[in-house]
């Protein structure tokens, strides 16, 4: 008997977790890149003594602080949700995933929290070198955090170095566990994504101020630095993504099949520019395709074969439509990023960047690209792993907690409401800080000016009254 009250607890737990983790990933993917940028600015200021670097460091530190706080609070939630929503997963994979997450806390979280305090409030209490050191420590901390959490996540995709006894994973080789087959690719791809995300935000902010004709010196510095970074990293991401894809083909071929909408493994794969995968009918509708395009990319041979979705039973296939479209969103944004970076570099080389208004308009509007690409990429890799939570070891349906569906539904609703309020206000404030610009009072933060709270309040007031 099925009534409307019979909510599917697995789907609810997944939706709740997907919601909270998607919100969370927005902030680290920005702050990892931004922390490195801040460290660079602090070092450049220490090196050259140039004022724009100092003002930019102060400006971005304030934005970093708000973003980081939102990353922290949404991350604390996750460390408990593994137990509240996925207690069976914690039991089966706890011996492996637990220590990896534990190392993240010990090696990264405390380091970040402590040295961010010194960055934000140290002011004149600490010597200049310690301020620079703190910025570097925060950047190292965020990167180490990514290292450990991606080691844990990669192990869920390509488990290695363990043995199963009575349904529970036991470690036997930690090096093999940490450096599991997909980890190097995933780590490089994600880290680069984070730099791209922050790079496009910095580029957009610089372009925005150039268009408005405000804070011109700082805006030029920002734009120049961003373009110089993006012209290297955006094409690099294509290469890293390609390598990650080949690694996935080797270890999780069904995920690749879903990304490509490839059903019949006995035929070469077309690259579908657009299609509507029909999971029940095991075919694509309305496909517009480049014949044998997928085979060419994945096997370097137009006639090459790779496994299709039909090679596995229907219950072992991921939700194809979701994976398929998320992959295309990521690809489209990646293409845009490469184009925007190359175009910007060309204009910069020709000395026309700061006067080419059409380009600055596009750049100023493209701040969101990294965030959407990161979330799309996560949907590809995480939904693509379904129906497994740990590939080949634990199905998602078996990973869930023995918690009533109603509890999950109610708290899911609360998460949506609370995150909706908190994060929209946070983004509103960040936008205000950005609008104030590095020439405003926000620039004084982190410098030697007086009480940080008071100066921050001044900055906030100016931001809101403009």
């Amino acid at each position, binding site marked *: 008997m099925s009534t409307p009250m019979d909510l599917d607890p697995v789907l609810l737990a997944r939706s709740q977790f997907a919601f909270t983790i998607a919100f969370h990933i927005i902030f680290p993917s920005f702050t990892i890149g931004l922390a490195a940028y801040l460290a660079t600015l602090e070092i450049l200021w220490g090196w050259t003594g140039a004022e724009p670097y100092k003002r930019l460091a102060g400006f971005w530190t304030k934005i970093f602080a708000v973003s980081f706080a939102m990353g922290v609070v949404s991350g604390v939630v996750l460390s408990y949700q593994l*137990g509240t929503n996925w207690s069976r997963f914690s039991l089966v994979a*706890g*011996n492996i995933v637990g220590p990896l997450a534990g190392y993240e806390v010990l090696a990264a979280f405390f380091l970040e929290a402590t040295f961010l305090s010194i960055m934000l409030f140290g002011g004149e209490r600490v010597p200049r070198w310690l301020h620079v050191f703190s910025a570097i420590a925060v950047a190292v901390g965020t990167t180490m955090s990514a290292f450990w959490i991606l080691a844990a996540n990669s192990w869920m995709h390509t488990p290695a170095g363990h043995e199963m006894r009575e349904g529970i994973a036991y470690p036997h080789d930690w090096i093999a566990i940490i450096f599991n087959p997909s980890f190097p690719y995933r780590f490089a791809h994600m880290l680069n994504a984070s730099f791209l995300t922050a790079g496009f935000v910095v580029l957009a902010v610089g372009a925005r101020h150039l268009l408005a004709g405000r804070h011109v010196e700082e805006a030029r510095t920002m734009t120049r630095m961003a373009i110089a970074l993006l012209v290297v990293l955006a094409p690099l991401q294509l290469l890293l993504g390609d390598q990650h894809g080949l690694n996935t083909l080797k270890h999780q071929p069904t995920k690749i099949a879903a990304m490509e909408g490839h059903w019949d493994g006995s035929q070469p794969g077309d690259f579908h520019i657009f299609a509507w995968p029909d999971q029940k009918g095991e075919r694509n509708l309305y496909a517009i395709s480049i014949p044998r395009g997928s085979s060419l990319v994945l096997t370097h041979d137009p006639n090459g074969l790779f496994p299709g979705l039909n090679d596995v039973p229907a219950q072992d296939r991921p939700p194809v439509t979701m994976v398929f479209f998320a992959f295309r969103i990521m690809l489209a944004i990646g293409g845009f990023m490469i184009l925007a970076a190359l175009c910007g570099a060309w204009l910069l080389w020709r000395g026309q960047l700061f006067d080419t208004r059409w380009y600055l308009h596009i750049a100023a509007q493209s701040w969101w690209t990294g965030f959407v690409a990161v979330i799309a990429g996560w949907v590809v890799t995480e939904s693509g792993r379904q129906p497994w939570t740990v590939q080949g070891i634990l199905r998602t349906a078996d990973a869930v907690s023995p918690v009533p569906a109603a509890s999950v539904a109610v708290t899911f609703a609360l998460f949506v409401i609370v995150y909706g309020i908190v994060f929209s206000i946070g983004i509103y404030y960040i936008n205000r800080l950005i609008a104030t610009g590095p020439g405003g009072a926000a620039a004084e933060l982190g410098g030697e000016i007086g009480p940080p709270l008071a100066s921050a309040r001044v900055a906030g007031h100016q931001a809101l009254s403009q």
Partner: protein
Amino acid sequence: MEDLLPLIWAVILGIAVAMYVILDGFDLGVGILFPFTDTNRQRDQMMASIKPFWDGNETWLVLGGGGLLVAFPRAYSVIMPALYLPLILMLLALVFRGVTFEFRTVARRTRRWDVVFAASSTLAAFCQGIVLGGFVQGIKVVNGAFAGGAFDWATPFAALCGLGVTAGYALLGATWLVMKTEGEIANRSRRQARVLLAAVLVFMAIVSLWTPLAFERIAARWFSYPNILFLWPVPIVTLLVAYAGWRGLQQNSASLPFLAAIGLFLLGYAGLAVSTFPYLVPPALTIWQAAAAPASQIFMLMGTLVLLPVILGYTCFVYWLFRGKVREGESYH
């Protein structure tokens, strides 16, 4: 060695939770006391006294939760679903509270963030008390998994623990403000601390009487021979520490009341440890039954032995760096 490992981890986890309760306790307590302040300037000062510390303090909570997963995954996989609702409510409160530190700085009108800060601090503290109560009173376990209902934790005892922890955090917050501020805030905090000290003693007394009466295993632990020979000084030491705190408040001592409040927390904490040991999920799983694979515990132990002293080192450094009083109308000079 294999028998020793879970014990070592229980101690490490115990230290992490104690660190969390004391450190985040005082900054949650400052939030709980927010509504009882007259002026915005004073609230700025209260906030300034905890701002450099809160993020590091809250990281101990992640270490507590993460540490439980690392060392005792079987306990983690039972406790988390059993206390699902109070845990999630606590997390949501902490979300609001954490962002308030930044939002209040940037906002034009701070009033609404004052309300959010006070409400979320109080809710988080109360939920932590509920979690404690739900843990002490026991969790229904069948075949190694949580087998109870969504509201098993909702008992008068858990509510009492919720109020007790809230009062305790407020005491830590008030005595922290006595130590870190001057003038009107310090004076008011001193008055508040007296009331809170009395309230905390009452809550401790009720819990100390309630638990042995309601739970036979706890009565047996405390009152059986020879345990009682070792345990009888605990209540007396508690009273002595409370008296020292009281004297410190009377004599306008800056740091004695805060140290006494920490002492009371540690004593109450030790009392609970005595009551529940060796159970990690009373009355179903002991620390040995809940332990992770020895290889996992050893792997993490190696890192912990290196990194925990480093963490304690730079935590101390930050407290030293931001030492001294926050004066009225300014934060750190």
